[in-house]
């Protein structure tokens, strides 16, 4: 079998490795789009702040990792797919045939319709190349405007702040990370940032970026404000890389449409990661969940099916974790809750703590936290397993901080109760 994988991000690499594990003799080619070794976009913020070098962003660290596994790695990008001939064509004109194909081409930043977006000093923050340019421009003390305070924006915010620039964030929504956190938590983040001299402007849109007098650039907002900027970073969301599939016959929406086996409408062609509309566990519907753990899950499922091991995906959980200048927040699943569900809330802004749990019946369906770092993955465990909480639900409504106890209790053999017997045998 010849397996071709388009995209060398986490999904592509995981798929290649998984295929190798289950199909020792298969031929595997992994095609990257950027002329870099397979790397992780998630590591870019840490590259910017100097925590790691470019090597540190690489998805696999061992020398010759792909060669050792017999995975051919080559550069693309692929510009078209011929489903009839079962081949792909790369930008250099070369073509490759395949038995199975995985589309894991990820996403690219959305470029909002703003005048002056192509000016020098305006960058997205998505690729290693972007990171190199930002590092050039982001000088200590210089004014920097970050457009977008979504999840990715907030991660970049952390690095820019650590780089010591004079930072202003402009967000269209009414709070920071509106798609990840509610108003209370979003505003906690905002106050926290403001306390650390990061200016946060919400409910604001950029009208134009022109050359400025106080700095190289001036960012004009629709409300009339003007912000000086030596550098403007755009982080207003991403969209799937599906353009090259136009006319291929592979069905797409916002992303590539897949069935529960992560196969597209074309047999033998699969999709995974940010480019694929996989099943959202919380809704049961297909959805774009552009996060690394989901990309890896997709890839795993797709790869098994590509090897002929029929494996159905029951859904991925949307979740995020964010460190905003030391204030750590996370959200899971249906964090906004559902009608008729119950809620447990703890708000202690002074202590930088917030926990909001959402229940449907006596099952946890969503959660948000600020300031919680111990055992936080248990929230995923409870939501994903859907185990009934029983009496623990009300205990959590009283004290949401008892989440770890609740988890251990319900994960044990049934409810934790009853006679366990002395540690040393007693005569009857």
């Amino acid at each position, binding site marked *: 079998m010849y397996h071709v994988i388009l995209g060398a991000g986490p999904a592509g690499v995981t798929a290649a490795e998984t295929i190798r594990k289950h199909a020792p003799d298969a031929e595997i080619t992994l095609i990257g789009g950027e002329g870099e070794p397979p790397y992780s976009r998630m*590591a870019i913020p840490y590259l910017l702040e100097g925590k790691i070098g470019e090597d540190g962003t690489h998805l696999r660290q061992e020398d010759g990792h792909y060669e050792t596994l017999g995975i051919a790695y080559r550069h693309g990008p692929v510009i078209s797919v011929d489903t009839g001939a079962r081949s792909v064509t790369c930008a250099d004109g070369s073509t490759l045939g395949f038995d199975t194909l995985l589309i894991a081409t990820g996403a690219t930043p959305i470029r909002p319709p703003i005048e002056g977006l192509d000016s020098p000093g305006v960058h997205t923050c998505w690729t290693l190349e972007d990171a190199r340019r930002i590092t050039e421009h982001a000088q200590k003390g210089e004014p920097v405007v970050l457009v977008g305070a979504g999840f990715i924006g907030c991660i970049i915010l952390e690095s820019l702040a650590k780089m010591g620039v004079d930072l202003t964030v402009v967000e269209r929504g009414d709070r920071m990370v509106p798609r990840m956190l509610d108003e209370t938590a979003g505003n906690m983040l905002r106050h926290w940032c403001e306390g650390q001299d990061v200016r946060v402007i919400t409910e604001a849109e950029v009208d134009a970026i022109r050359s400025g007098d106080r700095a190289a650039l001036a960012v004009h907002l629709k409300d009339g404000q003007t912000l000086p900027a030596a550098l403007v970073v755009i982080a207003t969301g991403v969209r799937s890389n599906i353009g090259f599939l136009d006319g291929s016959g592979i069905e797409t929406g916002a992303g590539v449409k897949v069935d529960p086996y992560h196969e597209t409408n074309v047999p033998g062609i699969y999709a995974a990661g940010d480019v694929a509309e996989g099943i959202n566990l919380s809704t049961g519907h297909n959805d774009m969940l552009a996060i690394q*753990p989901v990309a*890896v899950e997709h890839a795993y499922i797709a790869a098994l099916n590509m090897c002929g091991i029929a494996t159905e995906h029951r859904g991925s959980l949307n*979740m995020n974790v964010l460190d905003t200048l030391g204030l750590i927040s996370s959200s899971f699943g249906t964090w906004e809750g559902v009608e008729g569900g119950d809620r447990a809330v703890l708000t202690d802004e002074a202590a930088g703590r917030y926990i909001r749990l959402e229940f449907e019946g006596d099952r946890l369906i969503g959660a948000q936290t600020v300031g919680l770092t111990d055992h936080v993955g248990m929230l995923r465990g409870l939501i994903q397993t859907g185990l009934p909480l029983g009496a623990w639900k009300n205990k959590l409504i009283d004290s949401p901080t008892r989440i770890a106890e609740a988890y251990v209790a319900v994960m*044990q053999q049934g409810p934790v109760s009853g006679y366990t017997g002395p540690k040393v045998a007693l005569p009857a």
Partner: protein
Amino acid sequence: MQKALTIDPGKCTGCKQCEMACSYVNEGEFNVSKSRIRVFDFHEEARFVPYTCTQCDEAWCQQACPVNAITTNEMGVKVVHDNLCVGCKVCTIACPFGTVNYNASTGKVIKCDLCGGDPACAAACPTDAITFQDVEQGGFDKMRQWAARTTAGTEPSGPNAPA
């Protein structure tokens, strides 16, 4: 032959010697708040439950790490490499067992690494509630079943699913 931690809550007395041994080995002091193993106390049910990483076969934390900072060693143990960990915390939310925690004082994540093959918690446990056993022995299967339960809702979607 691989060995694994086997936990029998029925034998635990809640003494916290495991937490102290763990923090001593890993942090150089007695500090139960930084232990990788934690004993949960269900007072009204007269039950104590030691809890730590089960070293999943194909671990969620490892798969979620964007920089390959968590690897599996020859004993099947998932080890965090501090030199590679950037502190992104994705593993902390990815692990459905909640056994990877962020340590703000180092900016890295911490998890049980079986102390390099000689787990201090098991050595310190006075009642054999925590033992380090060959994987063939029964306790390990029980642990695995317990672990599998966490993936029940998504089986076999996760990397932890039986292949």
